[in-house]
């Protein structure tokens, strides 16, 4: 416990805790919310750790007394005769570690080039659907007005199972039996980060125009999403939109919400 009062060991402890939180804690958070998660990239870890280190250094150098106490063990290791072996060990180990890290940086890497894409790119304000102009902004699902949602759900289900199933899957989790063949993976609808964040007209646009209809930031060349306007009618697409929300239990984002949060 006495160790913990010492600024040097406090600094070491802070760095250790920070590292654990960044590498393990952060990726765990989305999983709590039922979302997919990925490890934090090492460059990001490094960046965060440097920030933590700077903060720690500012804090230990805050007062002369603390600074001197902080330096004590370091000085001692450098000069005390009884720490000769530790000193020697560090003098060998640290350069080797640096050499190894340098080697990792310069050796040939065969990682795929980064593929950064926007998953929800900004939709156009209007599109041409099968030759007919259509204004997306403010557009509501016309099927919601006619009061036969149960039938629309059944129709949407038919369309989904005949067309969408191989990639997006029975559970709407983006894990259909063909999903493994495509990169990027098909979208999972059953997660909070996807369709509840979108208006129905956005979803209509994504279905109607498919991968090739994405703007460049959406990497249209990779997407296997078909251009459904070639195969489905507008009614079928609106019905499948009804099905997606109903089946997942999510509600679409409304235009009021979209307007309210527009500044984000």
């Amino acid at each position, binding site marked *: 416990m006495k160790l913990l009062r010492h600024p040097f060991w406090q600094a070491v402890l802070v760095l250790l805790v920070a590292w654990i939180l960044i590498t393990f804690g952060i990726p765990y958070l989305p999983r709590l919310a039922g979302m997919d998660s990925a490890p934090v990239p090492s460059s990001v870890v490094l960046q965060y750790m440097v920030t*933590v280190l700077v903060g720690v250094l500012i804090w230990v150098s805050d007062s002369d007394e603390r600074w001197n106490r902080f330096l004590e063990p370091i000085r001692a290791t450098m000069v005390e005769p009884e720490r000769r072996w530790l000193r020697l060990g560090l003098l060998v180990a640290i350069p*080797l570690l640096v050499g190894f890290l340098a080697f990792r940086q310069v050796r040939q890497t065969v990682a795929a080039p980064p593929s*950064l894409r926007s998953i929800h790119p900004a939709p156009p304000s209007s599109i041409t659907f099968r030759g007919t102009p259509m204004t997306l902004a403010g557009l509501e699902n016309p099927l919601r007005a006619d009061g036969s949602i149960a039938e629309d*759900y059944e129709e949407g289900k038919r369309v989904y*199972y*005949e067309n969408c*199933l191989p990639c997006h899957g029975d559970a709407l989790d983006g894990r259909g039996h063909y999903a493994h063949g495509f990169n990027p993976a098909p979208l999972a609808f059953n997660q909070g980060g996807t369709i509840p964040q979108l208006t129905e007209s956005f979803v209509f646009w994504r279905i109607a125009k498919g991968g090739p209809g994405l703007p460049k930031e959406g990497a249209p060349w990779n997407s296997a999403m078909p251009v459904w306007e070639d195969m489905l009618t507008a009614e079928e697409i609106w019905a499948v939109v009804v099905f997606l929300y109903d089946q997942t239990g999510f509600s679409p984002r409304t235009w009021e919400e979209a307007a309210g949060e527009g500044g984000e």
Partner: protein
Amino acid sequence: MTFVRAALATAGVLLATGFVRSPAPLPAQEAPAGKATYDRWCAGCHGADGAGGGPGAGTMLPRPRDFTTGRYQIRSTPSGALPTDADILAVILDGMPGTAMPGWRDRFSDGELRDLVAYLKTFSPFFESQPAPETLPIASAPSASEEALGEGRDFYEKIECNKCHGPTGRGNGPSAPTLEDDDDLPVRAADLTENWLFNGGGSVEEIHERLVTGLNGTPMPSFHDLIASEFMTEDQLWNVAHYVRSLAPEEPPRVSEVVRGARVEGELPASVDDEAWEVAERFYVPLVGQVVVEPRWFTPSVDGVWIQALHNGREVALRIVWHDPSRSPDPEWEEWRAKVVAIAEAGGETSDPAAAVSDTSGAAPDTTAPAAVTVAAHPPDALVVQFPRTIPDGMERPFFLMGDDREPVYLWRWENGRDGVEELLARGLARYEPLPGAEAGAVAAEVAYDDGEWRLMLRRPLDAGGVEGRLSFEAGRAIPFAVFAWDGSNGETDTRGSIGSWYFLYLDQPTASTVYVAPILATLLTAALGVVVVVRAQRRARNGAGR
């Protein structure tokens, strides 16, 4: 610590917004427990009436289970018998690999699962009329020693697994082209080298259970009686399972986005079966049905290829290996092809898929009618490797499905029966056009087929030789490529076939000496710095002490 706080705050906001689930607006009817779950999640394929004719069924081969027949493939019970509740539950939880049936683990509560199993059973009167099915007692597995595998191999031949599954298990036995399930739909003999696609799971125990119980409704029989009739012992049947398991790799292939091509000194391998390929690293590229543009293809034959690449600074060589039970066009498979094409063309429109194959109303197929399609329409096997025309500098590349009008792709097209490989451009799937200025034979090709496996070697100089539109390969760059495959005997041609995403070919650069210089320099510098710091600290300490 602010960043941690910030991260936590962000996560909190995420949690607070958008995750509130609204209740399902469609109320469940007064109905048996399990019906609501079934109607919502199962009926899309299996049909509201349980007869396997939901809207998703039309394009699937094998078809979704028809629960009204009481025939279940994956069971622990004797041939022809009903499954136990545990058998049904296991399939719901784990799904059926190699088919469209997903696993539903963690999706339903235990109560929902129990109700669902009970509801499925109400579709067939057999569960009422027949005695409760009993699990066949199974002796524990002997270990998989070398001798055991040898004996398993002997019995694999003695009980003639090869008749359907082929001599080395690639699903290419002489009876494979004629196999039909109980609904007279064509069904494949499993490729035993791909145990990750086995319908009932790929472990030794699961394979053994399939041997013991058979797969009801399919041509796969039960071998259990052979033990009672003392043709073989329990251990010997286990050894068949061990042997079958040994035909597949230890682990399912891992998919890597980057296919690495090692640099070799001297000449590249001269032939497709050159020893150099034995040691070159293999990469698996999964392929799936072409479901992006019409006409789509839901019943692909080739589910993946193994790729190897080598280069020597002047030329690049690719070797592509894949399984295909037929060397198309193969007259033995003509009937199969006609059936698959008829089913695909009927799509989901007919509720009785067998009617698409044969319109005799009885179960006795009238094979006296001549096949409508002749062997002339039987396409050859084919494979395409596609690249962009130039290595992209940014992220942008042509559309993965053979480009589009704006940006064509450069590709190599091989076709069985035709000499060599064509160099082509394409502006859309199977919309090929000649590569202007390309000389025939610029891409050397050699192909071998035996025992259900194609092996294709392709070789080309790295340099484009000044031909516009032809890719210049460069070592040390990520070169996008994609693979497409067609099994002619499965009726595949043009847009009907197997497709894959963009992957990257990375040709190794010769190891530059700088790779070692920098780390050594860094090590020495750090060491020197350390020594200087320590020496100065000690000197200062001595001076301080002396003062």
